[in-house]
């Protein structure tokens, strides 16, 4: 049994009855039991429940009822609510929280027969780029256990890279799917804002958060996207007026935008891999056009102000009263709030909440948040103009390969990891990170960014790229 098979390959194995869902799930459970002590990708797995679900899938298959994911394991990032399961967001504050309901995405996957395989590790409340802020301990990159997997969807990316599951969900507020996909050598897809429901995905920054997937291939990402998408009346920002007319048509060849200025301060080996991707796409018949992008540090500053401000509002719900852990030492309601949060939140979350509260409270004529939102408009306008000239944009996914766990980065250095990914979230665009090479034995990815509703378009380009290259087929040695 090869643990690195695609969804289509697994589906064929199951349909032809070469393997049962129970055998398939048992195989992946054994693999997790054997190797996950090294990587710490999963924060919860319930083998008995998995096997019971798998037996149910085998039974319905025998009755001729088949979903698109029938019998196939799917892991969920620990910020997606799964009914009856601990959903901790990898925070001490929610370490005992059992969700009373399913996120819409979890439900959509389950409806198609996907087997809920467990929760993956992440940065606490999705705030981080290294998966080191989890209350359950850091994830280690399967390519090199002394290195981080990226974050915040580090557990999902590493689990797919390690061959523990063929697909895992993730969330991307500023690059949290694409950066770990780059570090772990997998395909990370962040759809257009509003195409996937956020109901049941614990909020970080509501105008930026978007669910997505970590998979082996762009084709698998497209399959998952079809299953997960759709309007959800429970999510006010879910695209209610969606119709096929809005979709940007898939076509080939394309004009691809390329901002050479983005490569200025990158390692020459990484530049070579991105240049190599450009050559591959040219060989496929696409044309390239030089474009200018918004100043990265300004876009990043705008992103951090907005995301911290939204987080400080969203996370105010965690007061220890209705759910989550509550301090044992409080003689007044004020002390209860203060002590619960001081003891429940980790350092990075506290840092961002304090910064966000400050940004929201400053009373200068033009405060931080409004100024940041004006910059957001400028980034948005630039991309709108850019997509009048080109069909998609090619850009780096991350400024480096996976860094070491013991590497000391200060807050702003860590935040700058996201400088290639945040403009996509500011503008609600779709983007996919695909593996484009190895540098000193570590994977690196490249991003394809599309206009709003160009999800299928960028996945098609990624599919064509992966049909021409084999970088997505490389595997770590565990």
């Amino acid at each position, binding site marked *: 049994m090869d643990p690195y098979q695609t969804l289509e390959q697994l589906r064929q194995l199951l349909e032809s009855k070469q393997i049962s869902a129970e055998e398939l799930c048992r195989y992946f459970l054994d693999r997790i039991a054997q190797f996950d002590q090294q990587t710490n990708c999963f924060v919860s797995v319930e083998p008995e429940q998995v096997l019971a679900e798998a037996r149910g899938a085998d039974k319905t298959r025998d009755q001729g009822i088949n979903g698109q994911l029938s019998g196939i394991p799917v892991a969920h990032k620990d910020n997606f609510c799964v009914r009856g399961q601990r959903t901790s967001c990898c925070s001490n504050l929610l370490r005992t929280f059992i969700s009373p309901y399913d996120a819409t995405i979890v439900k959509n996957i389950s409806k198609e027969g996907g087997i809920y395989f467990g929760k993956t590790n992440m940065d606490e409340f999705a705030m981080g780029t290294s998966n080191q802020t989890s209350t359950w301990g850091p994830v280690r990159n399967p390519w090199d256990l002394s290195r981080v997997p990226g974050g915040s969807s580090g557990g999902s990316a590493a689990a797919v890279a390690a061959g523990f599951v063929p697909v895992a969900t993730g969330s991307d507020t500023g690059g949290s799917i694409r950066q770990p996909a780059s570090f772990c050598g997998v395909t990370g897809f962040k759809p257009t804002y509003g195409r996937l429901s956020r109901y049941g995905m614990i909020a970080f920054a509501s105008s930026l958060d978007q669910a997505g997937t970590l998979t082996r291939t762009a084709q698998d990402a497209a399959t998952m996207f079809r299953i997960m998408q759709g309007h959800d009346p429970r999510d006010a920002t879910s695209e209610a007026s969606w119709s096929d007319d809005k979709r940007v048509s898939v076509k080939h060849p394309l004009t691809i935008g390329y901002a050479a200025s983005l490569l200025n301060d990158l390692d020459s080996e990484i530049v070579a891999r991105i240049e190599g991707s450009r050559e591959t796409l040219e060989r496929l018949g696409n044309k390239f056009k030089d474009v200018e992008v918004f100043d990265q540090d300004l876009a990043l500053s705008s992103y951090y102000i907005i995301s911290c401000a939204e987080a400080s509002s969203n996370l105010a719900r965690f007061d220890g009263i209705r759910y989550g852990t509550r301090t044992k030492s409080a003689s007044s*309601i004020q002390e209860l709030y203060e002590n619960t949060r001081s003891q429940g939140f980790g350092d990075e979350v506290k840092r961002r909440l304090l910064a966000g509260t400050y940004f929201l409270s400053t009373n200068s004529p033009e405060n931080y948040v409004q100024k940041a939102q004006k910059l957001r408009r400028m980034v948005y306008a630039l991309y709108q103009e850019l997509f009048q000239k080109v069909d998609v944009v090619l850009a780096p996914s991350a400024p480096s390969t996976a860094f070491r766990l013991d590497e000391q980065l200060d807050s702003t250095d860590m935040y700058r990891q996201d400088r290639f990914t945040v403009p996509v979230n500011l503008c609600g665009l779709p983007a996919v990170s695909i593996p484009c090479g190895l540098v000193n034995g570590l994977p690196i990815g490249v991003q394809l960014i599309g206009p709003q509703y160009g999800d299928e378009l960028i996945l098609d380009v990624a599919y064509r790229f992966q049909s021409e290259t084999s970088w997505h087929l490389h595997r770590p040695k565990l």
Partner: protein
Amino acid sequence: MSDAEKETICADLELILEYVDQIHTVPTDGIDPLVHPIDIGHLRTSDEPETSAHENLNQTESVKTAEGFYVVPKVIEP
């Protein structure tokens, strides 16, 4: 937070503020703030009462409840 913790966080916040303060160098007069990336218009939902889902189940997640209420330290002093 302990004093040591406050000191570290203050130093980190200063670094963050120093970094993001660069936004104030950009002229933005006449530009409308962008609050949301997609135009979702004014959302309206029908004004129909619905049963709140899983009230009892939700309360099982609270550390302390009594008779359907959440129990907290005294809020109003006599």
